[in-house]
């Protein structure tokens, strides 16, 4: 940014005129941030892969391979095959939410604590809001990847067949929505949590989310316990599992698609706004 430009109105304005436009600067910085995150991800690829593969693999292996073979537990017979069909979309949703949340929340907690290394990025010529958006986008991408990983696993591992019937329109809309909602949840949690309380993320937030997320059962079956059926509506995961069921399998009842889209969109917007607000609060004083 040299200051040798011909003097227009005032020297300060001359200086200002050398600046790139807001959009241009924001675009460049956004791309820079993505590059930086990719580099860091690349450096820790093994950890990332382990995180995205191991959990769905174990889940599918135990519930869809081991259990039917030892005639244990859920379903059994055609019921077993039915259960696997119920399970797989749930595992996709779980992978998306766990990885989406983790990708954003855990790194954010580190970056805005102690040495505030986030300042480096806050001082880039980009608005604070866009820094947060970049975090969501990158987290969502990681969630998407984690969701995709489940498919090959589901194709190979289960002992009973999975009746997959993909509704493409639903899938390509549902997947990004679920990923962004997860990353936004991660941003919100990341700005709320202190580094010391990161462990709560798993024990207090993610575990209940999972257990009560309709992973192992369709939501409509909960009509036996009406209060629970209502209570789990507060869990964003329930819409994701139901949504992925609608997108991936047939013969399993699911919530009306409209309700799923409306609720998930609502969650996405609220969490994104809350996350950005919290982020601003944490990085600016």
């Amino acid at each position, binding site marked *: 940014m040299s200051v040798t430009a011909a003097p227009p109105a005032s020297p300060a304005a001359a200086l200002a005129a050398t600046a790139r436009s807001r959009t241009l600067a924001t675009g460049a910085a956004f791309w820079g941030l993505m590059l930086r995150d990719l580099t860091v991800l690349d450096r820790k690829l093994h950890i990332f892969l382990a995180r995205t593969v191991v959990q769905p693999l174990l889940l599918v292996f135990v519930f869809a391979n081991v259990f039917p073979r030892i005639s244990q537990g859920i379903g059994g017979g055609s019921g077993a095959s039915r259960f696997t069909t119920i399970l797989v979309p749930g595992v996709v949703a779980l992978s998306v939410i766990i990885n989406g949340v983790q990708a954003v929340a855990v790194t954010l907690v580190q970056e805005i604590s102690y040495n*505030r290394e986030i300042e480096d990025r806050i001082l880039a010529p980009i608005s604070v809001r866009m820094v947060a958006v970049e975090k969501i986008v990158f987290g969502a991408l990681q969630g998407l990847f984690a969701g995709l990983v489940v498919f090959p696993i589901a194709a190979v591992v289960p002992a009973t067949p999975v009746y997959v019937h993909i509704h493409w329109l639903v899938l390509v809309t549902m997947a990004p929505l679920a990923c962004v909602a997860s990353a936004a949840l991660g941003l919100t949690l990341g700005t709320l949590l202190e580094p010391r309380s990161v462990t709560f993320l798993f024990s207090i937030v993610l575990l209940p989310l999972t257990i009560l997320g309709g992973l192992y059962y369709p939501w409509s079956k909960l009509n036996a316990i009406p209060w629970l059926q209502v209570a789990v509506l507060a869990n964003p995961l329930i819409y994701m599992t139901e949504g992925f069921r609608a997108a991936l399998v047939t013969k399993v009842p699911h919530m009306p698609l409209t309700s799923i889209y409306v609720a998930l969109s609502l969650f996405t917007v609220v969490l994104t706004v809350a996350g950005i607000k919290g982020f601003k609060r944490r990085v600016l004083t």
Partner: protein
Amino acid sequence: MVGVTAGHTVSPVTEVLSSIWDRVLGGRASRSGPAPADADLFALGATWHDAARVIALVADAFEVDIEPAELVDAPTPAGLARLVELRRMEGGETAGSAPVSVSQEGMLWNELLAPGSFNLAPLVRRHHGPIDPALLGAAFEALAWRHEPLRTTFEVRRGRAVQIVGRPSRSSVPMVDLSGLATEAAETEARRLIADAATRVFYLAAEPPFAPSLIRLGPDDHLLVVRLHHLVFDDWSVDVYRRDLSALYAALATGGASPLPELAVSYSEAARLQRARLAGPAGTAEMSWWRHTLDGAPLTTQVAVGDPGGERPRGPSQPVSLTLPHELVGPLRALARHGRATLFMTLLAAFEVLLHRWTGEDDLLIASVVANRDGRALEGVLGCFTKKVPLRLRLHGDPTFLELLSQVRETLLGSLAHHHLGFETVLQEVLGRRAADHGLVPHVPIMFQGLVPSQAELRLPGLSGSAFGSADTQGPGLHVVGPERPLERGTQPERPLERGAGPERPFERGGAEARGGRPRTWGGGLYPGTFLGVSVLDDGTDVTVVVQGGFHPPAVQALLDDYLSLLGAVVQTPLRKVKELVGRGAGPERPERFSGFPFQRRRLETALAACPGVASVTLVVEDRPGSSETAGDRGPRMVAEVVPEGGPPLNLARLREALWRRLPGSPWPAEMVVLGSPGERQAGDGRPAGDGRPAGGESPAGGDRPASDGRPQPQGRPAGDPPSAAEARLAMSWARALAVPEVGVQANYWQSFSFLDALDEARRAGADVRPEQVARNRTIETLAADMATSQPSGPGKTTSAGETTLVAEGGALDDGRAATADRAGSEAPAASHAPAGGAAEGGGGTAAETASPVGQVATPAGVAGTEVIRAEGLAKTYPGGLVAVGGVDLSVYAGEIFGLLGPNGAGKTTTIGMLTTLVVPSGGRALVAGVDVATDPTLAKQFMGVVPQMNNLDNSLTVFENLYFHGRYFGMKAGRAKDTATGLLDRLRLAGRGDDSVEHLSGGMVRRLLLARALMQGPAIIFLDEPTAGLDPQSRLALWDILDALHAEGQTILLTTHDMEVADRFCDRVAIMDHGRILALDTPEELKRTLGSGTSVMVKGDGDLDALVHRLEALTWARDARRTELGVRVVLDRAAGALSTVMALAEETKVKITDVAVSEDSLETVFINLTGRELRE
């Protein structure tokens, strides 16, 4: 002995007196050898305490008594020698006297200066029935036989006050017969007589200050009026008097013997015993306790009640009393019990809070009274035993009221336990020296005392007593009255202690004038002055507070009202913090503080202007940097500049005395400079003013005063020159901010905290003032000139091109210079008399001349004057009300290194945070490269590189990647980012570390990498927050090398630091911040010049040192040149050429130099001067 000195020979008496002068003045009389025979004691700064010492020493040396008034008339050794010899021929008499008690001594000295100031209100009682004046006379005679003080007269012998116990007069009580008048007329007349009696001055040398008389209102209707003086009477004595007189009258009436037991000890014996005790180690121990307790205490505490115009009401106000409501008294007593204190202590603690509120001070000095009747033996003795004790009330920490109560209890008990030394002695010994450095006298004008109402009643057999109006003292305790009407010249005895007072005494001439023809309020200390006395009367059920003082009664009433509401608040919430209770001050006029001595400038000026021969007066407080605790040449000093009326030359000693009389107890100017009416000046004490120094300057405090060092240029403002609009606006707004009626345009308000507030005020009033202008100007006058000078570059006028702006500024500057030069020209007669100071003063001329105007910093061509940063009223208040930055204005120009200096917590980092968008401002605005950081951060951030105080490197990336990605954030293409990063690693001596993790870097490397990162995008400005904090010297040097190189390339840098040396060396300009404000902003050199103590050169050598001093004084840039014990010391404004100039002058004056030492001002001096020494955490 030797006769009166004739011709120029010095008599032995004069010689001895000269040595006494020397001893008392301690070197102030002359630099070497004894004082000259014509050394004027008062002109040399003697206080009345010094005068008393002279009198004592003269008495010791010659066995001759000199009275203070005589000393005033003949204040030189030669003059006094004549008097001493006369007196010795008369012969002295010393028999039959005893020393006065400690309690009496202070009062006696006071009586000399202000006769009648300790008169008590007469005891008045109406008696119905047949009264026998002869019998009453006999009873009073018997009473006087029983109680020594009632037959005691007082004299000054050999410089000491003595009491002479004589025989009581054997006469019936004198009677004034008003029975011929109608009852009403008689009562009116009686009241007039009583009022007259109250103020009549006692001839202490001739009559005991206790005089009963009768007023006959009708047959069998008499008033018994006893005139009395505090010297022989105190509150306790009222009961003794009533009981004893009743008993004696009854015994005499019935012919019986006196029923009263013999007294175990007489008053004079008790006085002797007290004195003997104090002479021993007890006295020494007590004094050291006081020294410790009063260390650093204020010299006085004044409550500004009423008295706005300098005219005081005639005489003291009538006492205003307030009976506390019962619903308040009960809880107060309970609160006292709860705090394990007495009711008096509780009321005192509340009074302390009241004083904090009214004075705004945290450290108060007031007095209380102790009955001092230790031991049963003294219980039945009539006489004055009460003593005042100093109470130092300090607000430690942030106590609740209950905690304060316990502090007050400790303070009060401590002071009461150490009451034996006289109040005046304590003050003079402990605070006197500090005060004397400024020509002041410690003075405690506020008293808070507890009284127990009288229990006994005066019963005369056959008579029935009743009250007479409000003058009856059967009720509340005594109160002191002063004379209520002026002592008219020649009609009143002026010297109550004079033996055989009469006009035939020599040296009487001028006495009346000297004694003052004005009413006098009663004094509070060794010296009379305005006084606020608060007495608490507690009779077990009712509690009454009586306030009296030389104030307007409405003001006293306001004080009482406030006190009452405060008591209410205290009772309701004893656990409230005192600071909340103090709240905002309610005092109508807040005095200025000068050397621990508050004063009201306007009042002082008015009083001085009212002195004979004075046409007009300007008061200036010079705030010479340095501690006020050190004597002499440092610390503030008040100077009065007096324009005389035509007629005979002013005698400054007389003028000072006249001022003293008008405003007793107030500080007065350490120096008075007599200015001629335009075109002509005259030396105040008759000396011709040929040497160009402030003529007639008397400098009692510290010997020779240097020619107006750093003083603003107030003398020469032509009388009647109306202030400019800007001046008027500033003066008005500041007067409002300071809560004073008026602020002189030449008054020096710089460095006073309220000045900064006043700056806000001025802004609110629409004045376009910048803090750095405030920093370099000390008076409204010069500031207004400065503002006029820089007007074209005011905020919001940056639309023209940079070059043009610069030229415009230059032009304006030149105009300003010309304007100030013109003014200086018109002021020539006045300015010329102080050549040594004229140019050095912070006056308009100099300020405009040398202050570095905006845009004139050394910058690479092409960008000169470009404002890279502009902050206007930038403020940050954190949630919760913490004001981190309270309105900062600054500009940083392209190419300069700008330093933001300040102690921890000054607001530096917050300021940088706001400029770099990390902290959201709560007020004002900041532009970086013309872009508002708050509204357009994305744009603004493109221009800045930020090096934070803490390591905030991206820990997930390597050293190289930290730079690379930073470049990418700023829109650099991959190749360019790579090249730049590699180049910077190289440049910042990090080559080879590119692939390391940043977690493994040393502190110095981290700092360099942070800097490299900030440089990646080639920012218009880099911010460095404490760049060298925590680095080892090598890393620090390496970093500074890099910054130096960057500076050379034209990089603009804003840094914060508290390393003064660094700031001094590297910064083009610095702003000194504290408490979220910029206190000063200029180049380091200019700051040192205007705010520092100067470069001082100390020369030791042989030869005509005086000639050298004379030559040095003539230097326009010398602030101060003087002889010291070791040689010559000169303080120069600038360091460059100082030494060579001094050496050259030494050679010219043929002084052989043996040693020279130069000590230069450092920025640290400035910093400490501005921000104080207190520790910041």
